[in-house]
């Protein structure tokens, strides 16, 4: 942002101060993530940069914590990763199906009691997580699903659907309903119309809702702490336990993997958002 030549000095100073402040805030946001990266390659057991690392000595770096993460004895990460993926995938599928269908109904202009129903559907997102956790625990315990994968999946569907409902209704708000009417007038049945016409058009919204649901489930720790037994341990639970007891470099290796994963999610989400805006004709 170049300033015009006639700008007075004190505004000039203010402008550069403002840019500096912004720079610091951006640094504050992003820098912590990059600390983990080099330390996870530390050859030593300490969580500080060793003298060797500061000199960029190749011997000071190693992959031993990654090795430990994958092959370590009595290592919980393998099981935790497997559980996390299974739970997140099924929770996402459940959230997407329930949420998309509900969003279709909610976007209809014939929908009665829209406000209160919408509020009910997104309530798991706006109620503090700890309260949701207690409530969901009571339900899951009552139906006898505590310490099962199914119980955790149900809990994560509850937490994930609001995101799908919101993103899909947002996509549908710019949706031209005359295309579905055109399909019907050409003799297509509703299911066929949905699969061939509506779904491809709202797909970006559905997928970004799915991403939110997936990340919510994959990163969720408060509710899982109530529900999980020893066999249902997930990555967040292992991280939580590890961070509470002893911060080991293995956790940093796991954390690095998670950052890489979230970078992938970010890129996908951004591409989808742009595609969705292009389809909906929003061009900012």
């Amino acid at each position, binding site marked *: *942002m170049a300033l015009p030549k006639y700008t007075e000095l004190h*505004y000039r100073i203010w402008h550069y101060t*403002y840019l500096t*402040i*912004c720079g610091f*805030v*951006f640094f*504050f*946001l992003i820098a*912590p*993530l990059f*600390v*983990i990266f080099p330390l996870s390659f530390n050859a030593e057991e300490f969580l*500080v940069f060793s003298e060797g690392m500061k000199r960029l000595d190749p011997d000071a770096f190693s992959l031993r914590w990654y090795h430990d993460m994958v092959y370590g004895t009595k290592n919980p990460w393998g099981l935790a990763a497997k559980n996390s993926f299974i739970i997140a995938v099924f929770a996402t599928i459940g959230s997407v199906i329930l*949420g998309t*269908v509900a969003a*279709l*109904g909610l976007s*209809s202009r*014939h*929908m*009665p009691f829209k406000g209160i*129903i919408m509020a*009910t*559907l997104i*309530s*798991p*997102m706006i*109620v*503090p997580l*700890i*309260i949701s956790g207690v*409530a*969901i625990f009571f*339900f899951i315990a009552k139906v006898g699903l505590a310490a099962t994968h199914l119980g955790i999946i*149900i809990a994560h569907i*509850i937490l994930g659907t609001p*995101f799908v409902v*919101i*993103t899909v209704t947002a996509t549908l708000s710019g949706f031209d309903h005359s295309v579905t009417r055109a399909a019907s007038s050409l003799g297509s049945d509703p299911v066929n119309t949905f699969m061939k016409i509506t779904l491809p058009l709202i797909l970006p919204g559905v997928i970004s809702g799915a991403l*939110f649901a997936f990340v919510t489930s994959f*990163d969720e*720790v*408060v509710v899982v*702490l*109530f529900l999980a037994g020893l066999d249902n341990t997930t990555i*967040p639970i292992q*991280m*939580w336990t590890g*961070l509470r007891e002893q*911060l080991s470099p293995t956790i*940093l290796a796991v*954390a690095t993997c*998670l*950052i890489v994963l979230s*970078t992938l*999610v*970010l890129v996908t*989400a951004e591409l989808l958002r742009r595609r969705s805006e292009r389809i909906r004709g929003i061009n*900012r």
Partner: protein
Amino acid sequence: MSSETQKILTTDGIPLEESLRKAEKKNKIKAFLLVAPLLLFIIITYIFPIGEMFTRSIDDRMVTNMLPKTFKAMETWDGKELPSEEVFAAFLTDYRALAEKKEHGKLGQRLNKEKNGFNTILKKLWRKMKKFEEGNAKGQIMAIHKRFRDVKYWQAIKRTAPPYTMSKYLKGMDMYYNEDGKVVQVEEDRRIHRILWLRTLEVAFFVTVFCFLMGYPIAHLLATLPMKYSNLLMICVLLPFWTSLLVRTASWMILLQQQGIVNDFFVWIGLVSDENRPEMMYNKTGTYVAMTQILLPFMVLPLYSVMKTISPSLMRAGKSLGGTPFITFWKVYFPLTIPGIGAGCLLVFILAIGYYITPALVGGASGTLISNQIAFHMKTTLDWSFASAMGLMLLTGVLVVYWIYNKLVGIDNIKLG
């Protein structure tokens, strides 16, 4: 002409109006059927359990069910003098029934909470009652211990008669029913919950303020920069947003430790000496720093989406009319961003007030918030009714915040960036 003939008919001979109404109704049902599965799912698995939290939090049927005959007999008792023979006899019958089911211990523990020393005399009663003779229950029970002759103990039993109690809510506010059944505060050095509520509010409030102070400038910068720069900088906001909360907490734990990089930096610039590196973790500093960074994206994204819609020509118009940049900003730009400020602050505040993972990890002993306490009672003490009561108190607080927000700004769609 009569009005009948004026009506337009469809090809089936049905009036058009009616036909349209039918179609409308059909569409309504169709739309509702689409929403129904999720609605039912959420109501059954989520809304009802929150209701169950409420019944659980006020539930006090244990003693009510244990001493049915006693309470029946006590109905006519005025509660001032010692109760009649009838009450004593009913109590003895109830207690014998309990002893047979081996549940008399639970009663003792529960009544001991109501009045100290109850457990001891009930145990005594349990030992002695086998030798009791028929009739004169009052005399025989009173002979066991002088406390049975004290009307206060019988009043305590009567207090447990109602099937519902507010005592868990009172406990959440560091109050209790005293022996006369009045609401009193606990001693000053035992008022732990009030400290937690205040601390939770304080942390949520200051984190919201910090997030606002840091989020506003960068949201403004992102909204005014040309697309190609802002997209790049947006990554700085979105990458932390998508990264696991625990990962970000872990990175703060590394940064803030005593031998950590932040302290290294302070030593290097000479702010502190190497020997007395300050503790930045396991206290409030750590909580504030980590929570602000973690919740900052939730402030920036709504602010950004609102600022993006403000036309730059408004600022130019303000300036061309003679406003200094500062005045134009304050009078034109800032008021237009209020919906974004509202949404961002609401989001951050609500998230912060229910947070506990980060404070528990970096906050140390002073980092315990109300959510930690709820989790503690859920998992460790298993006092689920107390956890429910505190959860609902927190929920009430959150709903009040929503209500205030709605009055001030109006509930806008929460945008996810």
